[in-house]
């Protein structure tokens, strides 16, 4: 799924959810959660990225509108390495 991460001033990310700018700390935390491993190999790390991306996709699929506000989704907000307020994510066609 392609997504756009933005706020009223700026677009921070546009592309596949899988390649979103996930914070190192969030990747590490999810890896510990899934595998009890704070330094996973690339295959397990890629699984962590997929899990984080899926979290965004699920939130978008379950939302009533076409976008989600990350203020309402702190569990997603903390996974993104973007230093800005008022972030939203919407699905991008194509």
């Amino acid at each position, binding site marked *: 799924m392609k997504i756009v991460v933005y706020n009223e001033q700026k677009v921070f990310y546009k592309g596949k959810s*899988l390649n979103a700018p996930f914070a190192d700390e969030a990747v590490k935390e999810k890896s510990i959660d899934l595998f009890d491993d704070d330094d996973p*190999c*690339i*295959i397990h790390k*890629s*699984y962590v990225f*997929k899990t984080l991306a*899926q979290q965004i996709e699920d939130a978008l699929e379950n939302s009533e509108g076409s976008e989600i506000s990350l203020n309402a989704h702190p569990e997603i907000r903390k996974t993104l390495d973007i230093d800005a307020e008022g972030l939203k994510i919407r699905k991008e066609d194509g």
Partner: protein
Amino acid sequence: MRYFDYAATTKPTEAVIKAMVESMRAYAGNPSSLHSLGIHAKKRYNQAKKNIAACINADKDNIVFTASGTEANNLALKGTAERVPKKTILTTTIEHSATKNTCAFLKKNGHHVVEIPTDQEGFVDQKALQNALKVYDVALFTLIYANNEIGTLQDLDAIVKLCRKHGALVHIDAVQAPLHENMDMKAIDCDFASFSAHKFFGPRGIGFLYVKDIATLAPIIHGGNQEFDLRAGTENLAAIVGCEAALKEASKKVSKREALIEENAKYFLKRLKEENIDHILNGPPLFKRRLNNILNIGFYRQDGEKLVFDLDRRGFALSRGSACSEGSIENSHVLQAIGVPKDYIDGSLRFSFSHRERKEDFDKLIETLKILIR
């Protein structure tokens, strides 16, 4: 969860678990101890070894227990290289990493290792093998008998004859085979064969190496004189008994199980075609010399890693065969070696099943694939 990853591992049967638990309760002694508890355990160990040997038409003295198929491969390769360090070891381009990386280790340590190519279905290029046997002083040809990724079954009859003609020993990685055919070591006539219990509904942590003549090997683990001095360490009797129970069960009704597997394989491929899902079957076509329970399917321009992830979320467990390589995920070296086209290799998945699946399981799988591959 619908399980399509039998080539990765199988779940021990209740009979296997029961045999292991009973063994742990009943045999407290070390089989090497010369008191009644040790002797009691040694007797059970010998019985298990005889029964395992009988399942593959071998003798008790041909069986060396290891902790895994990987260790069995290591013992065959390093044990041979240690005995005849100046000679060449031949291998193929489609080996399991247990052999591939052991060969790489030997090469790094100064041994001469040569890879024999295969054709597009994964069959050993016998002309190239013959040339290598003529050109080099070959100690051993090591090859995967039943390929764990694409199912190719090698023509052992021709290969062993060729190697014999040139005085080379033959090691087969037979780890995927016992559930699907009766292994007859006297008929196959190879020198070494690796087995692993967890591939045939036995426990993990136990494998064995069939060794035709123990004088051809040097040990790689030193210590006590267990396993003919080839593999030191107190015997894991519960695991050995589990292996015995699993192999005895696996050796029964092979053709009946295979008939069910063939039906399922045929049905799955038919349904993929009917639904117009763009795909290729990597490896040999059905019913050629192959394991029909390992179907490696390449889906056109798909992300295989993502498909595995999405299938898991929808209740299907399967694998790909990719590997970590210097910080990136690389496509399977087996699929690369047989030349799977770029448009299909990234979306290649290995569906490995048993005789237990029903048509409905494949119908569900097809329905899910249709949703994911749009």
